[in-house]
């Protein structure tokens, strides 16, 4: 279905292929993006390595650091239907609207943003659970943007997902063994020693007792269920796991256990993670590189330390300043904790606008304290701002100073807060 949209300026056009200074597709990877015919030549139960279908790139593991999956100008619009008597499309939720990103082999790429910013949709697009409206997705150099079910067969085992809600993502009528085994069955893999042995190994890998093979999900706590989901995702030895808010539903003490598990898997097994979460502190603890999303676009991307200690986009500043922290919160408002400078305080007004009718130009401008005319007229490209480190890209016409320490004056845009604080200041 086509919808009349004015062609979006910038975003993905007239710039490099990816936001990152990524080298061209891997030397070992096939060059043509065309569909690979006859993926079944080697058969699913091929060989000793339990790597799935006999695709060429399957045999050559990607080297750490080479681009694994790349999105260019990725767009996903969900139709909004309305009208009477015939329901027609009256608009579109622009969930993802021009996203460029690259996840490299063996790294954890964090995707943060508030609800409705399109981070989960991006994850599902990359896992090809959704069909993109526009843009390109390349997995190890091969175009999978609109690949058919059959064409995706060799790719599916390499990209797996872990979902947020460990209560909803496991079938309550299946045993743990059946759940973790099912990817092996679907892919037709018979590992040496049998499937059951492999499943028991996987359970052990994620810190569960292999004896619990025949138990049902309701017999496990939330954290243990999330481990089951992770074991299932590991069953096919994927190269990329899209983890969509994998620890958000868990209590703090349990969350830390699962965070540590994911970190260990990433390091020891060399699996790349696309780690989607709204919790900035958690993302900081698992990711090597981080992208911040706002209303369907990436506003800032870079390595972890650049984004967290030297953010350039006003929205990233606002996000970081809003994170409540146990260690520093007590002292907030006066001095920082011993030895550390006080952090800046930014209070935005209102909520995120609707993605059905996003603001023109820079989407953050309606909540930004620096917005000028240019921000409404031009979409800011995602580029390296002057003074930013290599690979640190910001989509802002007027980037902020790369520091999170307190400013001379707090930025308080919320009218109620500003009024209350103003009246107190005058009272003093």
């Amino acid at each position, binding site marked *: 279905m086509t919808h009349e949209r004015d062609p979006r300026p910038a975003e993905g056009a007239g710039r490099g292929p990816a936001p990152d200074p990524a080298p061209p597709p891997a030397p070992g990877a096939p060059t043509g993006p065309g569909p690979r015919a006859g993926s079944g030549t080697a058969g699913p139960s091929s060989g000793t390595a339990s790597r799935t279908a006999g695709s060429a790139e399957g045999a050559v593991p990607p080297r750490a650091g080479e681009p694994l999956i790349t999105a260019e100008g990725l767009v996903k619009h969900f139709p909004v239907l309305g009208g009477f008597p015939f329901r027609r499309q009256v608009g579109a939720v622009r969930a993802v609207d021009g996203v460029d990103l690259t996840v490299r082999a063996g790294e954890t790429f964090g995707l943060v943003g508030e609800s409705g910013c399109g981070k989960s949709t991006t994850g599902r697009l990359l896992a090809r659970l959704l069909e993109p409206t526009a843009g390109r997705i390349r997995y190890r150099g091969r175009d999978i943007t609109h690949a058919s079910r059959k064409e995706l067969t060799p790719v599916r085992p390499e990209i797996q997902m872990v979902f947020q809600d460990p209560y909803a993502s496991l079938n309550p009528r299946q045993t743990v063994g059946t759940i973790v085994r099912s990817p092996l069955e679907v892919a037709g893999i018979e590992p040496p020693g049998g499937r059951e042995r492999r499943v028991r190994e996987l359970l052990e890998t994620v810190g569960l007792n292999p004896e619990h093979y025949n138990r049902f999900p309701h017999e496990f706590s939330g954290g243990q269920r999330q481990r089951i989901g992770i074991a299932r995702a590991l069953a096919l030895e994927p190269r990329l796991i899209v983890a969509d808010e994998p620890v958000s539903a868990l*209590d703090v*003490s349990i969350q830390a256990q699962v965070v540590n598990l994911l970190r260990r*898997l990433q390091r020891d097994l060399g699996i790349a993670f696309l780690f989607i979460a709204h*919790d900035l502190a958690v993302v900081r603890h698992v990711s090597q590189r981080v992208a911040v999303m706002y209303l369907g676009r990436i506003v800032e991307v870079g390595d972890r330390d650049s984004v967290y200690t030297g953010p350039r986009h006003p929205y990233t500043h606002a996000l970081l300043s809003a994170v409540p*922290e146990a260690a520093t919160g*007590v002292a907030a408002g006066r001095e920082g904790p011993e030895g550390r400078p006080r952090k800046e305080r930014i209070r935005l007004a209102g909520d995120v606008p609707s993605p059905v009718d996003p603001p023109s130009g820079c989407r953050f401008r309606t909540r930004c304290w620096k917005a000028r005319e240019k921000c409404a007229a031009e979409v800011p490209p995602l580029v390296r701002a002057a003074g930013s480190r290599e690979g640190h890209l910001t989509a802002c016409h007027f980037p902020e100073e790369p520091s999170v320490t307190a400013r001379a004056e707090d930025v308080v845009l919320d*009218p109620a807060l500003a009024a209350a604080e103003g009246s107190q200041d005058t009272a003093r």
Partner: protein
Amino acid sequence: MTIPTTPGREAAGPAPAAPGDGPFLSVTDLRVRFTTEDGPVRAVDGLSFTLERGRTLGIVGESGSGKSVTSLAILGLHDPRTTTVSGRIRLGGREVTGARERDLERLRGNTMSMIFQDPLTALSPYHTIGRQIAEPYRKHTGASKRAARERAVEMLAKVGIPRPRLRAGDYPHQFSGGMRQRAMIAMALVCDPGLLIADEPTTALDVTVQAQILDLLGELQQESGTAIVLITHDLGVVAGAADNILVMYAGRAVERGSAAEVLGAPRHPYTWGLLRSTPDLDSDPDEPLRPIPGTPPSLLAPPPGCPFHPRCAFPPRVAGGPGRCSAERPELPEGRGAACHLTADQQRAGWSAEAGRAGATGSASVPVPADGGADLLRKEGDR
């Protein structure tokens, strides 16, 4: 029994404490027990605390620790057919436990009110926001419809809803998440309650909106002198918003103190564990988090003695041997303290050691398989 003039009214304006009659809210030895098919669940087991006007008490705990059950008990919202509530709850000098439903109705929304986690389910979808805010005001003050509507508009303006007169005619689904929570705050504060219970008020909100709402609650409190019980699982939220903190575990309070004391120099091993396992923006991100091993106990069969002892690393250091932790229930002292058999000196030294360990291991150290994980190298070999 008749309810005298509501203290909420008198408290309009910054009146920090009503002199003479002790704390505004006092809860003494509160026990809440549910009858279930599997047996009785002791959701809250001997909880005591006090709260002054104009102050905020943060109750922190993980799911199932009894924090929400406590708030429902204060409001008298438990179903007496399935729930046994014992102990004493006094609010503004009056007994809440054992009060008749009619008397409770006069307190709720007037002297004490509550903000819930999910404003979409807490608001009625069939009535306009303005009407829902005006309703408790009319009920408790007998104001006219017109006056109540004016009051609703005034409250909406106060909580920062733009164009309040227009938006008062909107339905909840027309509001965004943050605006709904603001509307609920307006509804809760419309009668100037003396006590506001906020149960996870920002958990469903985005982080930038959460910061707005928490700051707003603080500002409104300064203005009205309301006492706030802030219930949350997020240590960061209480750190910024609470004066005093009560840490709960398995239905019991395990530590109490000022926010600076509890977060800066925690005394209970459970609090240490919570703080250690919470990721923040300042610690070394390459250092693995140090979670609390195990899972919280079932309240159907809570462990004897200290409920935390199965997950605790310190029973061997307790005077009287590790058996003491599983046999004898430690009491939470009055004022600052922790319900733990470790001596006060051990408690102080314990956190210094924990904090020191976290600070010292900056470089790449051998990772501890803190989550009880298995041997991954073996799996590598399979490839």
